């Protein structure tokens, strides 16, 4: 009897769990995971910055002293500034729809939300060329009215919207479904109208998830290459976004400028990662 009582206080080592593995397998599994991450993600990041600073700080700064580069950055910011707010609205609407209403075709809508994840971005670009290009379905009509979509800003924005649509909706829909709508109902019986209910009750509940979706949407819209590449036409000082411009620089053997601009995107990814981690913790805490 005494022995049984003694076990707990004297056994200082960690209690052995049924699911714990032996030391060897633990080292192997963790080692593989860390090694893989290092080789595939950390090393490339280091290389980008190393190449960007090959000619020192001055070389790095010089890379941005270029009209085409500055134009590409400006264009990318513009595209993100249009895309992110729109997709935040679309995402909210879609998540609201899926989580609050039962209707025919709900499954279809749910899978359509994920479409951008399993369709190659190049197809996203192609469909808009087929629709709005010179030989496309609406091409002649658009030309008649002097509207240019393909090889211009509207086309870039459209294909970016397509590619980044999924993020806000995909994060919010399951969250809103899980939270249910009792609080919204309570707000209504207390006399809140639709807007007050959304602003004072729903939004505070989903704000971290929403922010997380916006961050991811922004990162992707600034970094999208494939879809934009098809519709942009790669016109320097006109329709080259940052990712496209990096490719141009690289193909012209301008390695330092190419990597300097690329390091901007890498930095964006790192900032996104940090913000994502922060919002995820807050989301867990809330």
């Amino acid at each position: 009897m005494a022995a049984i009582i003694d076990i707990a206080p004297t056994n200082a080592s960690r209690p052995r769990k049924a699911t714990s593995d032996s030391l060897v397998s633990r080292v192997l599994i963790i080692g593989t995971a860390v090694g893989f991450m290092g080789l595939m993600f950390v090393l490339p990041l280091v290389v980008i910055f190393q190449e960007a600073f090959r000619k020192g700080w001055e070389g790095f700064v010089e890379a941005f002293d270029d009209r085409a580069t500055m134009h590409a950055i400006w264009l990318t910011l513009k595209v993100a500034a249009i895309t992110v707010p729109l997709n935040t609205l679309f995402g909210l609407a879609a998540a609201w729809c899926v989580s609050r209403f039962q209707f025919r075709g709900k499954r279809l809508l749910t899978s359509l939300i994920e479409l951008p994840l399993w369709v190659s971005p190049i197809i996203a670009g192609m469909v808009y060329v087929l629709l709005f290009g010179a030989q496309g379905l609406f091409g002649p009509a658009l030309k008649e009215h002097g509207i240019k979509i393909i090889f211009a800003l509207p086309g870039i924005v459209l294909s970016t919207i397509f590619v980044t649509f999924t993020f806000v909706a995909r994060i919010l829909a399951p969250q809103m479904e899980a939270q249910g709508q009792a609080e919204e109902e309570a707000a209504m019986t207390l006399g809140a109208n639709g807007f007050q209910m959304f602003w004072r009750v729903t939004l505070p509940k989903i704000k971290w998830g929403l922010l997380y979706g916006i961050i991811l949407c922004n990162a992707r819209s600034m970094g999208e290459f494939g879809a934009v590449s098809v519709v942009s036409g790669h016109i320097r000082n006109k329709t080259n976004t940052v990712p496209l411009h990096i490719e141009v620089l690289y193909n012209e053997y301008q390695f330092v400028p190419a990597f300097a601009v690329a390091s901007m995107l890498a930095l964006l990814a790192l900032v996104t990662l940090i913000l994502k981690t922060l919002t995820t913790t807050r989301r867990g805490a809330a």
Partner: protein
Amino acid sequence: MSIHIHHISKTFGSFQALKNVDLEVKTGELVALLGPSGSGKTTLLRIIAGLEFADAGDGSIQFHGTDVTNHSAYERKAGFVFQNYALFNHMTVAENIAFGLRVMPRATRPDREDIDKAVTELLRRIALEGYGSRYPSQLSGGQKQRVALARALAVGPQVLLLDEPFGALDAKVRKTLRKWLRQFHNETKVTTLFVTHDQDEAFELADRVVVLHEGDIQQIGSPQQLREHPKNEFVADFLDCVMI
């Protein structure tokens, strides 16, 4: 304020939750909707609040003679208390209670001091003075439910609807709250309709009890009437008394 329910039916898909229900709740009455799960009692309560709408037909709901059948929940402003409290978790207790006052249109909204005063008074009534700055997550179940009640009462509703208000609480707290609610009702005389599957609760609290089964009203009467003269087999069986 009285509630008049006339010919209300509700179907979910192929399931008929309510079948032609007629019910009248008089001003100042405390009425219990009693029945097993799936008997339609919560559905009926939600239809009265405007959180759910009855099937189209000749059914109607009147609040004190005014037809509110097609009014939305926020127009009806029936005080509603949910089984799982449905407190706003990101707001303090005081903010929760003040919510209904703060969302009023500017013209009728009381000013900040009056809202604060009203909140303090309600906190006193639910015996939670000094809890105003806490968050719902810091309260016990019984405290949460009292806050939910205060929140519903803050806007001065003429009808109070309670959906299994003590369902999620342990037996002891439930008993205390029951007593407290009865006393509270005696003081305020707000027309109250509450849903329960616990016959003791219904009998102890209510002036009249409505027994529901499979979307049909089986019997309406005072606790004594029901106990002494159950109208049919189901009522007798459910109330666990012998048919005479």
